[in-house]
């Protein structure tokens, strides 16, 4: 499989983003359903995310990303542009859904049927939206690199 240094770099970013996202959201959700933001356990999760990202980057770039990517040519710029468009589209949709979700939750609160979304939950939902949009961007770039 003929892969350029730039494409390898995107693969590495994609893998690290995906793995770190999965760990962060699984680990933080296990802490009493995301309510414990300012807690010792949350600090441990954040510390582990940072350490894991650094180690994964060192290992993956050391093994597969030693070449310096060439300057971007027109195809690289076109693929990057498509990736950005895909990422922004995903972010827009997810933020729209988040706004709708918060509005519906507020409506349910007024009806006395549920408690309002608190700050930590909203923060995590925004982080999810950002992580997913980053993954969409990278996945789109990889798809177009493979497709030609």
């Amino acid at each position: 499989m003929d892969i350029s240094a730039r494409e390898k770099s995107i693969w590495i970013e994609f893998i690290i983003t995906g793995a770190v996202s999965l760990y962060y959201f699984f680990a933080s959700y296990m802490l009493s359903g995301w309510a414990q933001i300012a807690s010792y356990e949350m600090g441990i999760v954040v510390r582990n995310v940072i350490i894991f990202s650094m180690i994964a980057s060192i290992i993956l770039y050391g093994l597969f990303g030693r070449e310096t990517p060439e300057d971007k040519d027109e195809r690289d710029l076109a693929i990057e542009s498509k990736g950005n468009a895909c990422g922004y589209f995903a972010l827009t949709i997810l933020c729209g859904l988040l706004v709708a979700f918060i509005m519906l939750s507020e409506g349910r609160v007024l009806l006395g049927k549920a408690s309002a979304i608190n700050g930590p939950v909203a923060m995590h939902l925004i982080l999810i939206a950002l992580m997913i949009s980053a993954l969409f961007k990278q996945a789109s770039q990889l798809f177009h690199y493979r497709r030609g």
Partner: protein
Amino acid sequence: MANHVIKNKIRQLRFEHEQMTQSALASSVGVTRQTILSLEACRYSPSLELAFRIAQVFQVPLEEIFKYSPD
């Protein structure tokens, strides 16, 4: 980005020009080798500027290299 509408003879012209390598052609026109690979496989359509640069390298008219054939 896959595009079967524009065909080209870049590979054939490379062989006719002293077996020019993809890397050599890529360096001459200012793109990466993977872009030349995608061009030859007709999976990528070049910009007008890149098409002209390729034609200049091979010293042939644009129409001799690229053919537009809508499905």
